[in-house]
């Protein structure tokens, strides 16, 4: 059975070291043919024997993307028992992702979570006794991917995708209703309308593809959430970390009502830092929303930075936060440590069970110690970097491209004056592809929409 080529970034992503992009499938040579050229000027990997490496360049439209080492394994002597190619590149978030993109553009598709391992097992490469471990990997990676794809999608993008999907569904439902009940529902004049809608949808999707290119689709990096009571100095900490005055810092408690976020690098480790509204009971509706959001983000965080104002005694709000971070990776930051302390370092360490670091956001002290602690946690493996996010992003982009192509086919069909029933085939394809991004399947959407929107039947 012919299997398609899958690709993924095999190494964790950080700004340091080497990254590996792995491909597996029958047709890996066909993919490599289009993007790899050896130092000696030979394109592709077809002539490379198994377990041999070759030095060369990854090329995109005539320009060099990176200098790489390509390692080829031939079926069945590989991890998946298929042809496998590993591209060792110079690493770095940007280049690695560019190469993965290029591989996908040239015929590979982003691997599903755990798919390499799954193939290895299904092809008999992995011992039976390991089957359960395989299942665990698939399960955990999928759960993670799902969490990523749904929660990591930026709010506004999520909204846009829903809008487009909804419009596609309604258009399809209209066509299908008319096909099923031609005596009650007419499609006269619908082509022009559909053409307009499709152009609008395409514009949105193409814009999303661009933003995926810029890495703006997903929040990538260790999700780090700053928590604390109002006015504990959370926004000042964020400013300190990013080194400018992006977050608004005021003396009025409750200023940060929404969630601010920044991507920063600490010793080559990528962090997405989110500053949240101070946690306290409030009657202000807008602030309430902010507080709820803070809780939500904190729940999904990989790391929590809990900021405590040392000049104010702990209260019920702190209790809530301390309880919340008990099972999470967290660092406690004792802020305003230059003022008269109400709370001691030891007391706080005892109550939270976490590492406590004294900082002064105002005087910009303690930052180095914090950075070192984060780096230590990362390199000791306490804090895992979530490389699934990159591949999730690649998968989402692939789905967007598919959807865009399907919608272009709709326009083609309209231009060629094809009958309306041909449009819905491609419309539904686009709908399903977009559903992969939002994690929604089609199920009975279409039938339900037909009956909800149109008065059908005898």
């Amino acid at each position, binding site marked *: 059975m012919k299997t398609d080529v899958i690709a993924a970034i095999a190494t964790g992503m950080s700004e340091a070291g080497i990254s590996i992009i792995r491909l597996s499938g029958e047709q890996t040579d066909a993919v490599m043919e289009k993007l790899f050229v050896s130092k000696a000027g030979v394109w592709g990997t077809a002539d490379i024997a198994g377990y041999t490496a070759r030095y060369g360049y990854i090329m995109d439209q005539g320009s060099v993307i990176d200098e790489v080492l390509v390692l080829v394994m031939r079926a069945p002597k590989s991890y998946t028992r298929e042809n496998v190619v590993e591209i060792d590149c110079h690493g770095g978030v940007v280049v690695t992702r560019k190469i993965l993109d290029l591989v996908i553009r040239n015929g590979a598709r982003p691997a599903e979570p755990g798919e390499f391992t799954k193939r290895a097992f299904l092809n008999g490469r992995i011992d039976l006794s390991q089957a359960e471990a395989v299942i665990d990997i698939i399960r955990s990676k999928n*759960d993670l991917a799902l969490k990523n794809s749904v929660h990591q999608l930026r709010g506004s993008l999520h909204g846009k995708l829903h809008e487009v999907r909804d419009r596609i569904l309604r258009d399809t439902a209209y066509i299908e209703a008319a096909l099923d009940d031609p005596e009650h529902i007419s499609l006269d004049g619908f082509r022009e309308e559909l053409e307009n809608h499709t152009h609008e949808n395409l514009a949105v999707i193409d814009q999303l593809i661009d933003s995926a290119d810029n890495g703006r689709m997903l929040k990538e990096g260790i999700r780090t959430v700053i928590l604390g009571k109002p006015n504990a100095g959370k926004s000042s900490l964020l400013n300190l970390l990013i080194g400018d005055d992006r977050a608004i810092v005021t003396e009025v408690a409750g200023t940060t009502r929404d969630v601010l976020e920044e991507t920063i690098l600490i010793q080559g480790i990528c962090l997405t830092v989110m500053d949240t509204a101070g946690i306290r009971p409030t009657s202000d509706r807008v602030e309430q929303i902010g507080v709820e959001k803070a809780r939500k983000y904190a729940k999904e965080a990989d790391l929590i930075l809990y900021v405590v104002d040392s000049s104010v005694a702990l209260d019920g709000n702190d209790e809530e936060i301390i309880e919340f971070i008990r099972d999470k990776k967290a660092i406690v930051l004792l802020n305003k440590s230059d003022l008269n302390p109400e709370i001691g370092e030891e007391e706080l360490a005892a109550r939270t069970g976490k590492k406590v670091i004294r900082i002064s956001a105002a005087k910009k002290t303690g930052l180095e110690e914090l950075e070192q602690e984060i780096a230590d946690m990362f390199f000791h493996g306490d804090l895992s970097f979530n490389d699934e996010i990159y591949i999730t992003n690649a998968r989402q982009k692939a789905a967007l491209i598919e959807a865009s192509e399907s919608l272009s086919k709709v326009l083609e069909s309209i231009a060629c004056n094809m*009958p309306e029933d*041909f449009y819905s085939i491609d419309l*539904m394809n686009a709908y399903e592809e977009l559903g992969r991004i939002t994690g929604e399947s089609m199920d009975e959407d279409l039938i339900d929409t*037909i009956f909800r929107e149109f008065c059908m*039947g005898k």
Partner: protein
Amino acid sequence: MPYQYESYDVVVVGAGHAGCEAALACARLSFHTLLFTISVDSIALMPCNPNIGGTSKGHLVREIDALGGEMGKNIDKTYIQSKMLNLSKGPAVHSLRAQADKQDYSREMRRVLENTPNLIIKQGEVSEVLTQDGRVSGVRTSSDAVYPCRAVILCTGTYLNARCIYGDVSNATGPNGLAAATHLTDSLKKLGIEMYRFKTGTPARIDKRSIDFSRMEEQKGDEKAVPFSFTTSPDSMTKPQVSCWLTYTNEATHEIIRENLDRSPLFSGDIKGTGPRYCPSIEDKVVKFPDKDRHQVFIEPEGNYTNEMYISGMSSSLPEDVQYRMYRSVAGLENAQIVRNAYAIEYDCINPMQLKPSLEFKQIEGLFAGGQFNGSSGYEEAAAQGLMAGINAARKLSGKEPVILDRSEAYIGVLIDDLVTKETHEPYRMMTSRAEYRLLLRQDNADLRLTEKGYEIGLISEERYQKLLRKKEQIEEELVRLGRVMLGTGPEVQKVLADLSSVPLASSASLAELLRRPELNYVSLKPLDPERKELPSDVIEQVEINIRYEGYIKRQMHQVEQFRKMERKRIPDSIDYDEVPSLRIEARQKLKQIRPESVGQASRISGVSPADLSVLLVYLEQHRQRGNGGLL
């Protein structure tokens, strides 16, 4: 006193559209078959709309015919109007519909049944299905007679504990005042079968003499009637056709309905069953679509020998006095005389997820089911299931594997897969949007898709099979030929093209390439194709469709390939889902309930995610390797 009657191979319960096909299939496959009906005079009764076919249902009839079923032939003999719907759209959604003379239809089907060897018809009510060790062993009637048998096919339609309702009138009868079957449900429940309660409805019938047709638009049949059956000669379809008529409801109608909603059993809560969204009552339409100021009403004759007209679009369960005012508010019906009132009907049916794709109950061997009893709606859906249940009951008795059509082979496959895999909360109606590979599942190619299967099953004659093979060959040959014949850019060619308002050729092209131009067709290209042999019109139709939509067809075929990969991965009967690690709870529950036969079927269960499927695949491989290990 209970007594034992003689034994049969198969007992079919119910002689509606499902029961007739089931009984005919079994008898034609040489099994001694007994068909029970509550009234011999109501065999193949059409208690609701007076037509066969329509969108996607027409496809089902063609498929039934291609497999050797009876419905297509029967409507060809008894149609009084014929129409191909959706002709302005693509060939995949062209749908044939015929108005039937209801009495003729019923009488003609009865004649066929009565003259089929191995088939015995019996009037009576089956009250109990008898089993032994989880296997069917016979049936018992309400008169206490026991009929031993090896397989039972339940096709009870809308008769189980049926109740007909309008206003506050409620009669414990089946459709048309026929007796309901009141015992069987209890017996089925005792066997552990889960029952649903569904409802449907029918509009009033009005005396033709009281209708003012001058206030309506005439709806004629097609000039050239087209047969359903591939065995009916198109040239024989020359009967004079009758017309239907179109009128509309209006604000006054809607006002009458709105004022009396509180008297509707649907809104008062007297009706508890779930109705089909596809056939809403007129009160449903008025409530759900308040912005529509009118609804279409089609007036359709019930037959040639009756004045009754079917008022399509206005089914209702409102009280008689409201119905009277409501119908009379419609243009042309001002003086309408109602012959039969509209009513809603409630009945027992099963949760079809208890069935295998062969339509056999999972927990009771030898017990099959078809038709509205399985939670579907419509004559054609019923007939399709009846045929498949009949075929598979017969195969079971012969020790053969069941015939299961998949979603890429037939609408019948989509219908049955949906019923047994997806939860249905309303009577299921076939719709073209449910068929994901519909470009391949056209009504024009049902014979090419299925007749070979029908032949293998034993329901298609050698002669018909040979004809099919000849047709396939002609299509293939002509497709190859048209791809090979090249036309140059000479003046004769350009002249012919210009005459057909087609742009001249820039370089030489094959006839097939020219056929892709929307303004050209096979017949119009004749002057450029002197070598051409005379071919039958059905062959030409296939050639044209295949060339014209080649790109789309290829894409769907590619999708089908992907689809089949998953269908081929079988899940062994013995699987214990509690043993599969890491399935999510919802997925595990659904899989345990439905017990899909393939990974493909599992993928269509709502609540089973791609990750669950991956887990399942790995588990199955583990299972397989262990199995092999055990043998070594």
